[in-house]
C-alpha cells in the first residue's frame, strides 16, 4: 500500500501528523489484540499506548520491505505478555476482569450486538485457564487470521510449538464451552467423546 508506505516513512522522519494517521489506522486492532491477551481493560489500554510510544521510538529503524504489521504484532504481543506476567506477579491487585466485557467508565458498547458482548465475556472467563503464550497464539491465529509460520516468526517460537499452543488453547476453550456454555459450541460440535 503505497499510501501507507509514505505514511510510515514520514512518521519515521518525525512527522507527527503522519504518525497519528498511522495510529488511527491500527489502534483498534492493537487495542483489541492486547485486550484479548491480557484480559483486562486498563492493562490493554496501557499496552496499546506503550505499543505506539514504542513504535514512535523505533520507526526510524524501519526499512521498506519489512512487514509493518508483523512488526506491530510483535511489539503488541511482547508488551501484552509482559503485562500478563506483571499482573500475575501481583496477585494482591486481583484479576478483576469480570464477564462484563470492557467495563470502562463511561464506555459505549464497542460490540455489534448483545451476542457479541456475551461472547467477549465468555472468552475472558474461559481464557483465564490459558497461559499468556497460549492466549497470544490463539488470538493471532483465530482472531487475527495469521498463519502458523507468521505467528512463529512474530513470537520467536518454532511452528511446532505454535501448533502445540494453539491445540492446547482450543481444547481448553472447547472444554469450557461444553461445560459452561454448551449453547455456544459451534454447530456440529458436541461435548461428547467417542465411545
Amino acid at each position, binding site marked *: 500500500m503505497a499510501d501507507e508506505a509514505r505514511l510510515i516513512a514520514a512518521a519515521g522522519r*518525525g512527522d507527527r501528523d503522519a*504518525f*497519528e494517521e498511522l*495510529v*488511527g489506522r491500527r*489502534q*483498534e*486492532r492493537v*487495542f*483489541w*489484540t492486547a485486550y*484479548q491477551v491480557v484480559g483486562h*481493560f486498563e492493562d490493554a*489500554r496501557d499496552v*496499546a*499506548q*506503550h505499543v*505506539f*510510544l*514504542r513504535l*514512535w*521510538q*523505533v520507526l*526510524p*529503524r524501519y526499512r521498506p520491505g519489512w512487514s509493518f504489521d508483523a512488526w506491530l504484532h510483535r511489539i503488541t504481543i*511482547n*508488551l501484552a505478555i*509482559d*503485562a500478563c506476567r506483571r499482573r500475575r*506477579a501481583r496477585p494482591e491487585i486481583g484479576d478483576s476482569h469480570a464477564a462484563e466485557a*470492557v467495563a*470502562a467508565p463511561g*464506555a*459505549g458498547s*464497542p460490540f*455489534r450486538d448483545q451476542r*457479541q458482548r456475551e*461472547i*467477549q465475556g465468555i*472468552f475472558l472467563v474461559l481464557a483465564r485457564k490459558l497461559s499468556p503464550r497460549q492466549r497470544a497464539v490463539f488470538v493471532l491465529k*483465530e*482472531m487475527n*487470521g495469521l*498463519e*502458523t509460520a507468521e505467528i512463529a516468526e512474530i513470537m*520467536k517460537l518454532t511452528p511446532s510449538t505454535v*501448533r*502445540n499452543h*494453539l*491445540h492446547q488453547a*482450543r*481444547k481448553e*476453550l*472447547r*472444554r469450557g*464451552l461444553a461445560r459452561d456454555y454448551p449453547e455456544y459450541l*459451534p454447530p456440529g*460440535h458436541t461435548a461428547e*467423546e*467417542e465411545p
Partner: protein
Amino acid sequence: MNAGCREVVDWLELAREGRLASSLQARLRDHLNSCPGCRQEERDTEPLGIFADLTRGELPAGVENYILGGLRVEEDRPEAVVWSSASIWPALASLAAAAALVVVWATSGGAAVTPGTDVWLEAHAMDDAVATVEDIRSPTAEVLALSLPEPAGGRTEVILIVDGSIDL
C-alpha cells in the same frame, strides 16, 4: 497417545492450512481412520470460530484519547538514561561481531526483570547501521537483542539502556 499419534496431531494444523505434503495426507487419513484418540484430538482442536471477531470491535470510549494523550506527552523521541551492566555482557557477547556502536534499549515496563523473563531490547539510537531485532536466549536471561547484518571486524560496543532494572 504414542509417538506416532503425536506426530499425526502435529500434522492436523498443517493439513488445515493446506500445507501438509501430499505424501503425508494419505498417512494422516489412514491414521485417523484407525485411531479413535486422534479422531477425538482432531475434533477437539478444530477452529472454534465464535471468537473470530473479537479483535474487530470499535474502540471503547476514551481509549483513543488515552493512546494519543500518551503520545502527545512525548514531544520528541526520548533521550534515555544510560544504564549498563557488565553482567549482561556475556549474554550479548555472541553478538559482538561488528564495528558499529550499537545502542539498545531494554524496557521491562518498570518492573524488575528476573532470569527467565522476556526482556525486550530494541534499536533506540544508533548510526545508520541496519539492525534486526531477534531473540537471544542466554543462560541467565531470555532477551531480545540486535544483530547486525554483516560483521565488519573489530569489536561491537553495546550499551544497555534500561527502563527499570535487571536483576541477575
